[in-house]
């Protein structure tokens, strides 16, 4: 069972109180993008064994979106932060790098 702390209301919420929103930090293919690039943006998703960033909504709570950084192999949660951002907070990235030196970082 996954427990994520909502950064908006501070509740350690059970997975069943949350609605999943898929991979985080996707960048929309621009207006001049090719069909192949747009298809990749729409459908291609990373499925890493290790560090992963996911969007979640605190559906049975404050209703706000947040992003969780966690490990898909150990279910360790590195941290959560509000979704109104384009990149993870620097201190969280440092913390992940300390624990997972092999992590290649976000694309």
């Amino acid at each position, binding site marked *: 069972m996954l427990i994520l702390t909502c950064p908006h209301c*501070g509740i350690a919420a*059970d997975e069943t*109180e949350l609605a999943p929103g898929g991979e985080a930090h996707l960048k929309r293919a621009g207006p001049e993008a090719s069909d192949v690039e747009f298809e990749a943006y729409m459908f291609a998703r990373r499925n890493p064994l290790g560090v992963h960033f996911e969007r979640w909504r605190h559906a*049975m709570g404050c209703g706000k979106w947040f992003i969780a950084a966690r490990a898909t192999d150990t279910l360790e949660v590195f941290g959560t932060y509000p979704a109104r951002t384009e990149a993870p907070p620097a201190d969280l990235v440092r913390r992940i790098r300390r624990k997972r030196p092999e992590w290649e970082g976000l694309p």
Partner: protein
Amino acid sequence: MHDHQPIARLAPAPPCGMVTLKGDPGRAGLRRAVKAAVGLSLPGRRAMLREGERVVAWMAPDEVMLFMPRGDVAAALAAARKAFGKGSGLVADVSDARVLFTVAGPHAREVLARLSPADMGALGPGEMRRTRLAQIPAGIWHWGEGAFTVMVFRSVAEHARALLENAAAGPEAGFFAPGT
């Protein structure tokens, strides 16, 4: 079917007025609107403040819910709208959207813990825990006076009543100290 007495008393709470306010928490408008509508200050994260029959509850970083007697709703709406002024803010009468139940008795906390993944043992007085009861969203709080209040959407009120009634059908496991 059950040989036991219910381990908690369940009752629908009398209807009250409910008003939702939304606004930028970084600006003064939301705080002023709460003050104007119910005379209370803006509560901290997950907190509720009470003055007689008027209550303000923190719902989200940019949203609060006001509780008051039904007769006071019209005046509260007008006062909140005036306080937001030309700034952006939402004022909505949602009195008919939700219903309240009270769950009382020495094992009330256990009844709620049976239906929710939330840590019911950690729920202190004047804190609203928004969670789920079985499959439906709910808000739960108590004021340290014995009874818990449960808030659910009106459309699922009958389902919530049945859930709570079933969970209150004994016997108790005694996980929480009675009356806490």
